[in-house]
Protein backbone atom coordinates (compact mmCIF):
# COMPACT_ATOMS: atom_id res chain seq x y z
CA UNK A 1 0.00 0.00 0.00
CA UNK A 2 1.28 3.47 -0.84
CA UNK A 3 1.74 5.85 2.09
CA UNK A 4 -1.01 8.44 2.41
CA UNK A 5 -1.98 11.36 4.60
CA UNK A 6 -4.95 10.59 6.83
CA UNK A 7 -7.34 13.21 8.08
CA UNK A 8 -10.72 13.27 9.72
CA UNK A 9 -13.25 15.69 8.36
CA UNK A 10 -15.30 17.75 10.79
CA UNK A 11 -17.92 19.08 8.37
CA UNK A 12 -19.42 18.01 5.08
CA UNK A 13 -18.41 21.27 3.37
CA UNK A 14 -14.86 20.85 4.62
CA UNK A 15 -14.70 17.30 3.24
CA UNK A 16 -15.99 18.46 -0.15
CA UNK A 17 -13.45 21.26 -0.35
CA UNK A 18 -10.73 18.62 -0.07
CA UNK A 19 -12.08 16.55 -2.92
CA UNK A 20 -9.71 16.21 -5.86
CA UNK A 21 -8.07 13.54 -8.05
CA UNK A 22 -5.59 12.41 -5.43
CA UNK A 23 -7.88 12.45 -2.41
CA UNK A 24 -10.36 9.75 -1.54
CA UNK A 25 -13.08 9.58 1.06
CA UNK A 26 -13.35 6.61 3.37
CA UNK A 27 -16.47 5.49 5.23
CA UNK A 28 -16.92 1.74 5.81
CA UNK A 29 -13.66 0.93 4.06
CA UNK A 30 -14.69 -2.64 3.19
CA UNK A 31 -13.92 -2.11 -0.48
CA UNK A 32 -11.48 0.82 -0.48
CA UNK A 33 -8.99 -0.64 2.04
CA UNK A 34 -8.86 -3.83 -0.02
CA UNK A 35 -8.32 -1.87 -3.25
CA UNK A 36 -5.54 0.09 -1.56
CA UNK A 37 -3.84 -3.10 -0.39
CA UNK A 38 -3.80 -4.29 -3.98
CA UNK A 39 -2.52 -0.92 -5.26
CA UNK A 40 -5.64 -0.49 -7.39
CA UNK A 41 -6.63 2.60 -5.41
CA UNK A 42 -3.62 4.77 -4.57
CA UNK A 43 -4.89 7.92 -2.87
CA UNK A 44 -2.31 10.44 -1.71
CA UNK A 45 -4.62 11.49 1.03
CA UNK A 46 -7.54 9.80 2.67
CA UNK A 47 -10.35 11.71 4.36
CA UNK A 48 -12.41 9.96 7.01
CA UNK A 49 -16.00 11.11 6.46
CA UNK A 50 -17.71 8.78 8.95
CA UNK A 51 -18.62 11.60 11.32
CA UNK A 52 -19.82 14.14 8.75
CA UNK A 53 -22.33 12.08 6.78
CA UNK A 54 -25.88 11.61 8.06
CA UNK A 55 -26.12 8.28 9.92
CA UNK A 56 -29.85 8.25 10.67
CA UNK A 57 -32.90 6.78 9.00
CA UNK A 58 -35.74 9.28 8.96
CA UNK A 59 -39.27 8.53 7.88
CA UNK A 60 -42.39 10.48 7.12
CA UNK A 61 -45.77 9.41 5.83
CA UNK A 62 -44.67 9.42 2.22
CA UNK A 63 -41.05 8.26 2.18
CA UNK A 64 -38.00 7.01 3.99
CA UNK A 65 -34.62 8.70 3.92
CA UNK A 66 -31.48 6.70 4.65
CA UNK A 67 -28.35 8.68 5.48
CA UNK A 68 -25.21 7.83 3.50
CA UNK A 69 -23.41 6.72 6.67
CA UNK A 70 -26.11 4.29 7.87
CA UNK A 71 -24.46 0.89 8.10
CA UNK A 72 -26.03 -1.93 6.09
CA UNK A 73 -26.99 -3.87 9.22
CA UNK A 74 -28.81 -0.84 10.65
CA UNK A 75 -31.07 -0.71 7.58
CA UNK A 76 -32.03 -4.37 7.97
CA UNK A 77 -32.86 -3.83 11.67
CA UNK A 78 -34.97 -0.71 11.13
CA UNK A 79 -38.65 -1.29 11.97
CA UNK A 80 -39.97 0.96 9.18
CA UNK A 81 -37.78 -0.72 6.59
CA UNK A 82 -38.99 -4.14 7.74
CA UNK A 83 -42.65 -3.08 7.61
CA UNK A 84 -42.75 -0.87 4.52
CA UNK A 85 -39.63 -1.62 2.46
CA UNK A 86 -38.88 -5.27 3.27
CA UNK A 87 -37.43 -5.96 -0.20
CA UNK A 88 -34.54 -3.65 0.67
CA UNK A 89 -33.77 -5.53 3.89
CA UNK A 90 -34.03 -8.86 2.13
CA UNK A 91 -31.57 -7.84 -0.60
CA UNK A 92 -29.06 -6.45 1.90
CA UNK A 93 -29.17 -9.66 3.95
CA UNK A 94 -28.39 -11.64 0.80
CA UNK A 95 -25.10 -9.77 0.41
CA UNK A 96 -21.67 -10.06 2.07
CA UNK A 97 -21.33 -11.30 5.67
CA UNK A 98 -22.59 -9.94 9.01
CA UNK A 99 -19.15 -8.46 9.72
CA UNK A 100 -19.03 -6.61 6.41
CA UNK A 101 -22.65 -5.44 6.73
CA UNK A 102 -21.76 -4.00 10.16
CA UNK A 103 -18.99 -1.95 8.54
CA UNK A 104 -20.35 -1.05 5.11
CA UNK A 105 -22.06 2.31 4.60
CA UNK A 106 -25.07 3.02 2.40
CA UNK A 107 -23.16 5.50 0.22
CA UNK A 108 -20.20 3.14 -0.07
CA UNK A 109 -22.44 0.31 -1.18
CA UNK A 110 -23.43 2.37 -4.23
CA UNK A 111 -19.82 3.33 -4.93
CA UNK A 112 -18.21 -0.10 -4.56
CA UNK A 113 -16.14 -1.23 -7.53
CA UNK A 114 -16.67 -4.30 -9.65
CA UNK A 115 -15.23 -7.66 -8.56
CA UNK A 116 -14.19 -8.61 -12.12
CA UNK A 117 -11.04 -10.75 -11.59
CA UNK A 118 -9.07 -8.74 -14.16
CA UNK A 119 -9.92 -5.45 -12.45
CA UNK A 120 -8.34 -6.95 -9.32
CA UNK A 121 -5.29 -8.43 -11.08
CA UNK A 122 -2.93 -5.52 -11.73
CA UNK A 123 -0.72 -7.66 -13.99
CA UNK A 124 -3.47 -7.85 -16.63
CA UNK A 125 -4.93 -5.18 -18.92
CA UNK A 126 -8.21 -3.66 -17.73
CA UNK A 127 -9.93 -0.61 -19.20
CA UNK A 128 -11.65 0.13 -15.92
CA UNK A 129 -8.47 0.09 -13.87
CA UNK A 130 -6.15 1.49 -16.53
CA UNK A 131 -8.11 3.12 -19.37
CA UNK A 132 -6.95 2.23 -22.84
CA UNK A 133 -5.16 -1.01 -21.94
CA UNK A 134 -7.91 -3.33 -23.16
CA UNK A 135 -10.44 -5.70 -21.63
CA UNK A 136 -9.01 -9.04 -20.52
CA UNK A 137 -12.39 -10.44 -19.53
CA UNK A 138 -13.91 -10.10 -23.00
CA UNK A 139 -11.93 -13.12 -24.23
CA UNK A 140 -10.90 -14.44 -20.82
CA UNK A 141 -12.50 -15.99 -17.77
CA UNK A 142 -15.80 -14.19 -17.93
CA UNK A 143 -18.29 -16.52 -16.26
CA UNK A 144 -19.06 -13.87 -13.59
CA UNK A 145 -19.38 -11.04 -16.13
CA UNK A 146 -22.17 -9.24 -17.93
CA UNK A 147 -24.81 -10.64 -20.27
CA UNK A 148 -26.46 -7.34 -21.13
CA UNK A 149 -25.52 -3.67 -21.56
CA UNK A 150 -21.78 -4.20 -21.89
CA UNK A 151 -19.47 -2.61 -24.47
CA UNK A 152 -16.37 -3.87 -26.27
CA UNK A 153 -14.38 -1.95 -23.66
CA UNK A 154 -15.78 -3.48 -20.48
CA UNK A 155 -17.92 -6.47 -19.46
CA UNK A 156 -17.81 -5.91 -15.68
CA UNK A 157 -20.90 -6.20 -13.46
CA UNK A 158 -21.93 -4.12 -10.46
CA UNK A 159 -21.62 -6.36 -7.39
CA UNK A 160 -24.24 -4.89 -5.04
CA UNK A 161 -27.41 -6.63 -3.85
CA UNK A 162 -28.76 -3.59 -2.01
CA UNK A 163 -28.64 -1.56 -5.24
CA UNK A 164 -30.81 -4.12 -7.05
CA UNK A 165 -33.60 -3.53 -4.52
CA UNK A 166 -33.09 0.25 -4.69
CA UNK A 167 -33.40 0.09 -8.48
CA UNK A 168 -36.57 -2.00 -8.23
CA UNK A 169 -38.08 0.42 -5.70
CA UNK A 170 -37.28 3.51 -7.80
CA UNK A 171 -35.19 5.13 -5.09
CA UNK A 172 -33.68 8.61 -5.33
CA UNK A 173 -30.06 9.49 -4.55
CA UNK A 174 -29.54 12.86 -2.88
CA UNK A 175 -26.13 14.42 -3.42
CA UNK A 176 -24.42 17.29 -1.64
CA UNK A 177 -22.37 19.44 -3.99
CA UNK A 178 -19.38 21.67 -3.27
CA UNK A 179 -21.44 24.80 -2.67
CA UNK A 180 -23.43 22.80 -0.09
CA UNK A 181 -26.46 22.48 -2.33
CA UNK A 182 -28.50 19.31 -2.59
CA UNK A 183 -29.25 17.62 -5.87
CA UNK A 184 -31.42 14.61 -6.61
CA UNK A 185 -30.73 11.91 -9.12
CA UNK A 186 -33.01 8.96 -9.90
CA UNK A 187 -31.41 5.76 -8.65
CA UNK A 188 -31.68 4.08 -12.04
CA UNK A 189 -29.65 6.98 -13.53
CA UNK A 190 -27.00 6.93 -10.81
CA UNK A 191 -24.98 4.02 -12.16
CA UNK A 192 -24.00 3.99 -15.80
CA UNK A 193 -23.13 1.57 -18.59
CA UNK A 194 -19.46 1.20 -19.55
CA UNK A 195 -19.77 2.49 -23.15
CA UNK A 196 -16.50 4.26 -24.00
CA UNK A 197 -15.70 5.32 -20.44
CA UNK A 198 -15.47 2.06 -18.47
CA UNK A 199 -13.39 3.77 -15.75
CA UNK A 200 -16.55 5.63 -14.71
CA UNK A 201 -18.91 3.45 -12.69
CA UNK A 202 -21.55 6.11 -12.04
CA UNK A 203 -22.72 9.64 -12.71
CA UNK A 204 -21.64 11.12 -9.38
CA UNK A 205 -20.23 14.57 -10.25
CA UNK A 206 -16.62 15.21 -9.25
CA UNK A 207 -17.66 17.97 -6.87
CA UNK A 208 -20.29 15.99 -4.97
CA UNK A 209 -20.79 13.19 -2.49
CA UNK A 210 -23.77 11.02 -1.63
CA UNK A 211 -25.83 12.52 1.19
CA UNK A 212 -28.71 10.06 1.43
CA UNK A 213 -31.05 7.68 -0.37
CA UNK A 214 -34.80 8.06 -0.29
CA UNK A 215 -37.60 5.71 -1.29
CA UNK A 216 -41.20 6.77 -1.71
CA UNK A 217 -43.90 4.76 -0.03
CA UNK A 218 -45.04 2.01 -2.37
CA UNK A 219 -47.41 -0.95 -2.52
CA UNK A 220 -44.58 -3.50 -2.73
CA UNK A 221 -44.29 -4.49 0.92
CA UNK A 222 -46.44 -7.64 0.70
CA UNK A 223 -45.59 -9.50 -2.46
CA UNK A 224 -41.88 -9.29 -2.94
CA UNK A 225 -38.90 -11.60 -3.31
CA UNK A 226 -35.15 -11.48 -3.73
CA UNK A 227 -33.63 -14.55 -5.37
CA UNK A 228 -29.86 -14.71 -5.49
CA UNK A 229 -28.05 -17.55 -7.24
CA UNK A 230 -24.35 -17.97 -6.55
CA UNK A 231 -21.51 -20.47 -6.37
CA UNK A 232 -22.16 -21.19 -2.68
CA UNK A 233 -25.12 -20.79 -0.42
CA UNK A 234 -23.98 -17.63 1.33
CA UNK A 235 -21.22 -15.00 1.30
CA UNK A 236 -20.60 -14.93 -2.45
CA UNK A 237 -21.34 -12.46 -5.21
CA UNK A 238 -24.34 -13.15 -7.41
CA UNK A 239 -24.13 -15.06 -10.65
CA UNK A 240 -27.60 -13.68 -11.19
CA UNK A 241 -30.04 -12.15 -8.75
CA UNK A 242 -33.64 -11.02 -9.15
CA UNK A 243 -35.59 -8.53 -7.07
CA UNK A 244 -39.28 -8.92 -7.80
CA UNK A 245 -42.30 -7.12 -6.39
CA UNK A 246 -45.96 -7.30 -7.33
CA UNK A 247 -48.97 -5.20 -6.51
CA UNK A 248 -51.92 -7.54 -6.74
CA UNK A 249 -55.65 -7.06 -6.91
CA UNK A 250 -57.02 -10.52 -6.29
CA UNK A 251 -55.06 -12.60 -8.76
CA UNK A 252 -54.43 -9.73 -11.17
CA UNK A 253 -51.12 -7.93 -11.33
CA UNK A 254 -51.71 -4.17 -10.95
CA UNK A 255 -48.03 -3.36 -11.34
CA UNK A 256 -44.76 -5.24 -11.19
CA UNK A 257 -41.13 -4.46 -10.54
CA UNK A 258 -38.24 -6.60 -11.74
CA UNK A 259 -34.55 -5.85 -11.37
CA UNK A 260 -31.39 -7.94 -11.55
CA UNK A 261 -27.87 -8.00 -10.21
CA UNK A 262 -24.90 -9.89 -11.67
CA UNK A 263 -26.01 -9.23 -15.24
CA UNK A 264 -24.80 -5.73 -16.11
CA UNK A 265 -22.52 -2.80 -15.28
CA UNK A 266 -25.41 -1.31 -13.31
CA UNK A 267 -28.41 -2.74 -11.42
CA UNK A 268 -30.65 -3.71 -14.29
CA UNK A 269 -34.37 -2.99 -14.54
CA UNK A 270 -36.50 -5.23 -16.79
CA UNK A 271 -39.06 -2.58 -17.74
CA UNK A 272 -40.41 -4.42 -20.79
CA UNK A 273 -41.31 -7.46 -18.67
CA UNK A 274 -42.80 -5.16 -16.01
CA UNK A 275 -45.08 -3.66 -18.64
CA UNK A 276 -46.00 -7.11 -19.91
CA UNK A 277 -47.03 -8.29 -16.44
CA UNK A 278 -49.31 -5.31 -15.88
CA UNK A 279 -52.96 -6.39 -15.91
CA UNK A 280 -52.14 -10.09 -16.37
CA UNK A 281 -53.19 -12.92 -14.08
CA UNK A 282 -50.49 -13.99 -11.64
CA UNK A 283 -49.95 -17.50 -12.98
CA UNK A 284 -46.95 -19.70 -13.67
CA UNK A 285 -47.54 -19.28 -17.43
CA UNK A 286 -47.48 -15.49 -17.20
CA UNK A 287 -44.31 -15.62 -15.10
CA UNK A 288 -42.63 -17.95 -17.56
CA UNK A 289 -43.53 -15.66 -20.47
CA UNK A 290 -42.11 -12.66 -18.59
CA UNK A 291 -38.89 -14.62 -17.97
CA UNK A 292 -38.66 -15.53 -21.65
CA UNK A 293 -39.16 -11.89 -22.58
CA UNK A 294 -36.22 -11.01 -20.33
CA UNK A 295 -33.85 -13.70 -21.53
CA UNK A 296 -34.51 -13.60 -25.26
CA UNK A 297 -32.43 -10.48 -25.95
CA UNK A 298 -29.41 -11.39 -23.84
CA UNK A 299 -25.94 -11.70 -25.32
CA UNK A 300 -23.80 -13.90 -23.08
CA UNK A 301 -20.00 -14.00 -23.39
CA UNK A 302 -17.83 -17.07 -24.05
CA UNK A 303 -18.09 -18.53 -20.52
CA UNK A 304 -21.35 -17.23 -19.09
CA UNK A 305 -24.01 -18.66 -21.37
CA UNK A 306 -25.29 -20.60 -18.34
CA UNK A 307 -26.50 -17.30 -16.88
CA UNK A 308 -29.33 -17.12 -19.42
CA UNK A 309 -31.31 -20.20 -18.30
CA UNK A 310 -30.24 -19.46 -14.72
CA UNK A 311 -31.81 -16.01 -14.97
CA UNK A 312 -34.93 -17.45 -16.60
CA UNK A 313 -35.40 -19.74 -13.62
CA UNK A 314 -34.54 -17.01 -11.13
CA UNK A 315 -37.19 -14.68 -12.59
CA UNK A 316 -39.85 -17.42 -12.47
CA UNK A 317 -38.87 -18.38 -8.92
CA UNK A 318 -38.82 -14.77 -7.72
CA UNK A 319 -42.28 -14.08 -9.15
CA UNK A 320 -43.64 -17.31 -7.66
CA UNK A 321 -42.08 -16.41 -4.30
CA UNK A 322 -43.89 -13.06 -4.44
CA UNK A 323 -47.15 -15.01 -4.19
CA UNK A 324 -45.92 -17.18 -1.32
CA UNK A 325 -44.90 -14.08 0.63
CA UNK A 326 -48.48 -12.84 0.62
CA UNK A 327 -49.89 -15.90 2.35
Amino acid at each position, binding site marked *: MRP*FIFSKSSALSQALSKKNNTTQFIAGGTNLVDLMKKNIAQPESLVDITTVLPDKITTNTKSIQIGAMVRNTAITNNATVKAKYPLLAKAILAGASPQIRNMASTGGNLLQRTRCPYFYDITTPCNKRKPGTGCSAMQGQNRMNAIVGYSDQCVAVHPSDMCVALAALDATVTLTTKNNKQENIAFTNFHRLPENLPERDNNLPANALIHSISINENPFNKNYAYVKLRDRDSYAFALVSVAAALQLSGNTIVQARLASGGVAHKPWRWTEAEQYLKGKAATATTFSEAATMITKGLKPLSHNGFKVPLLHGAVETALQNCLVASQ
Partner: protein
Amino acid sequence: MKQEHSRRFFLKTSSVLAAFAMIPRTAKAFYEEVKNFFVPNKEVLPLTVSINKKKYSIKADTRTTLLDLLREDLHLTGTKKGCDHGQCGACTVHVNGERVLSCLTLAAMVSGKEVTTIEGLANEDKLHPMQQAFIECDGFQCGYCTPGQIMSAVACVNEGHTGSVAEIKEFMSGNLCRCGAYNGIVQSIQKVAP
Protein backbone atom coordinates in the same frame (compact mmCIF):
# COMPACT_ATOMS: atom_id res chain seq x y z
CA MET B 1 36.30 7.19 -36.38
CA LYS B 2 33.50 8.46 -38.48
CA GLN B 3 31.72 5.15 -38.17
CA GLU B 4 31.94 5.17 -34.34
CA HIS B 5 30.49 8.67 -34.24
CA SER B 6 27.51 7.64 -36.27
CA ARG B 7 26.97 4.55 -34.14
CA ARG B 8 26.90 6.66 -31.01
CA PHE B 9 24.57 9.08 -32.72
CA PHE B 10 22.30 6.19 -33.64
CA LEU B 11 22.28 4.83 -30.08
CA LYS B 12 21.58 8.24 -28.60
CA THR B 13 18.74 9.13 -30.91
CA SER B 14 17.17 5.71 -30.75
CA SER B 15 17.21 5.67 -26.94
CA VAL B 16 15.70 9.15 -26.83
CA LEU B 17 13.00 8.06 -29.24
CA ALA B 18 12.39 4.92 -27.20
CA ALA B 19 12.08 7.02 -24.06
CA PHE B 20 9.56 9.27 -25.80
CA ALA B 21 7.57 6.29 -26.96
CA MET B 22 7.33 5.08 -23.36
CA ILE B 23 5.93 8.38 -22.11
CA PRO B 24 2.18 7.93 -21.83
CA ARG B 25 0.03 10.13 -23.95
CA THR B 26 -1.75 12.23 -21.37
CA ALA B 27 -0.25 14.34 -18.61
CA LYS B 28 -2.32 12.49 -16.02
CA ALA B 29 -1.12 9.09 -17.17
CA PHE B 30 2.45 10.42 -17.18
CA TYR B 31 1.99 11.65 -13.62
CA GLU B 32 0.69 8.20 -12.61
CA GLU B 33 3.75 6.53 -14.18
CA VAL B 34 6.22 8.88 -12.50
CA LYS B 35 4.45 8.46 -9.15
CA ASN B 36 5.38 4.77 -9.14
CA PHE B 37 9.08 5.63 -9.03
CA PHE B 38 8.82 8.05 -6.13
CA VAL B 39 7.37 6.45 -3.03
CA PRO B 40 6.43 9.16 -0.54
CA ASN B 41 7.55 9.02 3.05
CA LYS B 42 5.29 7.11 5.36
CA GLU B 43 2.89 9.15 7.43
CA VAL B 44 2.76 8.42 11.14
CA LEU B 45 -0.27 9.16 13.30
CA PRO B 46 -0.58 9.24 17.07
CA LEU B 47 -3.49 7.00 18.11
CA THR B 48 -5.36 6.37 21.31
CA VAL B 49 -7.24 3.10 21.20
CA SER B 50 -9.02 1.13 23.86
CA ILE B 51 -8.47 -2.59 23.51
CA ASN B 52 -10.04 -5.04 25.95
CA LYS B 53 -10.77 -2.10 28.26
CA LYS B 54 -7.14 -1.04 28.33
CA LYS B 55 -6.06 2.27 26.79
CA TYR B 56 -3.08 2.34 24.45
CA SER B 57 -1.35 5.45 23.10
CA ILE B 58 0.72 4.47 20.14
CA LYS B 59 2.18 5.94 16.97
CA ALA B 60 1.30 4.04 13.83
CA ASP B 61 1.75 4.32 10.07
CA THR B 62 -1.50 5.61 8.53
CA ARG B 63 -1.62 2.41 6.46
CA THR B 64 -1.81 0.18 9.55
CA THR B 65 -4.93 -1.92 9.74
CA LEU B 66 -6.48 -2.70 13.11
CA LEU B 67 -5.35 -6.29 12.57
CA ASP B 68 -1.69 -5.32 12.12
CA LEU B 69 -1.89 -2.87 15.02
CA LEU B 70 -3.11 -5.69 17.27
CA ARG B 71 -0.64 -8.32 16.07
CA GLU B 72 2.50 -6.39 15.13
CA ASP B 73 2.44 -3.36 17.40
CA LEU B 74 0.61 -4.61 20.49
CA HIS B 75 1.54 -8.32 20.22
CA LEU B 76 -2.07 -9.35 20.73
CA THR B 77 -1.66 -12.30 18.38
CA GLY B 78 -4.91 -14.04 19.30
CA THR B 79 -6.59 -12.30 16.37
CA LYS B 80 -5.49 -14.16 13.25
CA LYS B 81 -4.56 -13.02 9.76
CA GLY B 82 -6.14 -15.37 7.25
CA CYS B 83 -6.67 -13.83 3.83
CA ASP B 84 -6.14 -10.15 4.77
CA HIS B 85 -8.80 -9.24 2.20
CA GLY B 86 -12.09 -9.61 4.06
CA GLN B 87 -12.93 -13.02 2.68
CA CYS B 88 -12.34 -15.43 5.57
CA GLY B 89 -13.36 -13.82 8.88
CA ALA B 90 -10.30 -15.06 10.83
CA CYS B 91 -9.57 -11.48 11.91
CA THR B 92 -13.05 -10.81 13.37
CA VAL B 93 -13.05 -8.55 16.45
CA HIS B 94 -15.70 -6.39 18.11
CA VAL B 95 -15.64 -2.62 17.73
CA ASN B 96 -18.10 -0.89 20.05
CA GLY B 97 -19.70 -4.29 20.62
CA GLU B 98 -20.25 -5.14 16.94
CA ARG B 99 -18.34 -7.75 14.96
CA VAL B 100 -16.17 -6.32 12.21
CA LEU B 101 -13.20 -7.41 10.10
CA SER B 102 -10.01 -5.95 11.56
CA CYS B 103 -8.10 -6.54 8.29
CA LEU B 104 -10.33 -4.03 6.46
CA THR B 105 -10.43 -1.52 9.33
CA LEU B 106 -7.79 1.19 9.40
CA ALA B 107 -6.33 1.60 12.90
CA ALA B 108 -6.71 5.36 12.52
CA MET B 109 -10.47 4.91 12.29
CA VAL B 110 -10.90 3.11 15.62
CA SER B 111 -9.37 5.96 17.61
CA GLY B 112 -11.66 6.56 20.57
CA LYS B 113 -13.60 3.33 20.05
CA GLU B 114 -13.76 0.23 22.23
CA VAL B 115 -12.17 -2.86 20.66
CA THR B 116 -12.63 -6.37 22.06
CA THR B 117 -10.43 -9.23 20.88
CA ILE B 118 -10.36 -12.93 21.78
CA GLU B 119 -7.92 -12.04 24.59
CA GLY B 120 -10.57 -9.87 26.21
CA LEU B 121 -13.35 -12.43 26.23
CA ALA B 122 -12.52 -14.54 29.29
CA ASN B 123 -13.14 -13.27 32.79
CA GLU B 124 -9.64 -13.77 34.20
CA ASP B 125 -9.28 -17.57 34.47
CA LYS B 126 -12.91 -18.30 33.68
CA LEU B 127 -13.51 -18.88 29.99
CA HIS B 128 -16.33 -17.12 28.18
CA PRO B 129 -19.27 -19.54 27.79
CA MET B 130 -18.67 -19.59 24.03
CA GLN B 131 -15.01 -20.53 24.49
CA GLN B 132 -16.09 -23.32 26.84
CA ALA B 133 -18.74 -24.48 24.37
CA PHE B 134 -16.20 -24.64 21.52
CA ILE B 135 -14.06 -26.97 23.66
CA GLU B 136 -16.99 -29.16 24.67
CA CYS B 137 -18.54 -29.38 21.18
CA ASP B 138 -15.31 -29.84 19.19
CA GLY B 139 -15.84 -26.47 17.52
CA PHE B 140 -12.36 -26.54 16.00
CA GLN B 141 -9.62 -28.76 14.68
CA CYS B 142 -6.45 -26.83 13.76
CA GLY B 143 -7.70 -23.78 15.63
CA TYR B 144 -6.54 -21.07 13.25
CA CYS B 145 -10.00 -19.73 12.41
CA THR B 146 -11.22 -20.26 15.99
CA PRO B 147 -10.63 -16.79 17.50
CA GLY B 148 -12.56 -15.26 14.60
CA GLN B 149 -15.25 -17.96 14.83
CA ILE B 150 -15.69 -17.37 18.57
CA MET B 151 -15.84 -13.57 18.24
CA SER B 152 -18.39 -13.97 15.46
CA ALA B 153 -20.35 -16.59 17.42
CA VAL B 154 -20.59 -14.34 20.49
CA ALA B 155 -21.94 -11.54 18.28
CA CYS B 156 -24.31 -13.96 16.52
CA VAL B 157 -25.87 -14.85 19.88
CA ASN B 158 -26.00 -11.18 20.99
CA GLU B 159 -27.73 -10.25 17.72
CA GLY B 160 -30.31 -13.00 18.26
CA HIS B 161 -29.64 -14.88 15.05
CA THR B 162 -29.82 -18.35 16.57
CA GLY B 163 -33.40 -19.31 15.77
CA SER B 164 -32.52 -22.32 13.64
CA VAL B 165 -29.50 -24.19 12.29
CA ALA B 166 -30.11 -22.49 8.93
CA GLU B 167 -30.14 -19.05 10.56
CA ILE B 168 -26.94 -19.79 12.50
CA LYS B 169 -25.23 -21.00 9.33
CA GLU B 170 -26.33 -17.92 7.38
CA PHE B 171 -25.15 -15.53 10.09
CA MET B 172 -21.85 -17.37 10.53
CA SER B 173 -21.13 -17.52 6.79
CA GLY B 174 -18.51 -14.79 7.06
CA ASN B 175 -16.20 -17.17 8.94
CA LEU B 176 -14.58 -19.92 6.92
CA CYS B 177 -13.11 -23.09 8.45
CA ARG B 178 -10.84 -25.14 6.21
CA CYS B 179 -10.90 -28.09 8.62
CA GLY B 180 -14.67 -28.19 8.26
CA ALA B 181 -15.55 -27.98 11.96
CA TYR B 182 -18.84 -26.34 11.03
CA ASN B 183 -21.10 -28.86 12.78
CA GLY B 184 -19.22 -28.38 16.06
CA ILE B 185 -19.37 -24.61 15.64
CA VAL B 186 -23.14 -24.68 15.10
CA GLN B 187 -23.55 -26.93 18.16
CA SER B 188 -21.40 -24.58 20.27
CA ILE B 189 -23.63 -21.66 19.33
CA GLN B 190 -26.79 -23.64 20.03
CA LYS B 191 -25.40 -24.52 23.44
CA VAL B 192 -24.82 -20.88 24.38
CA ALA B 193 -27.93 -19.48 22.67
CA PRO B 194 -30.79 -18.63 25.03
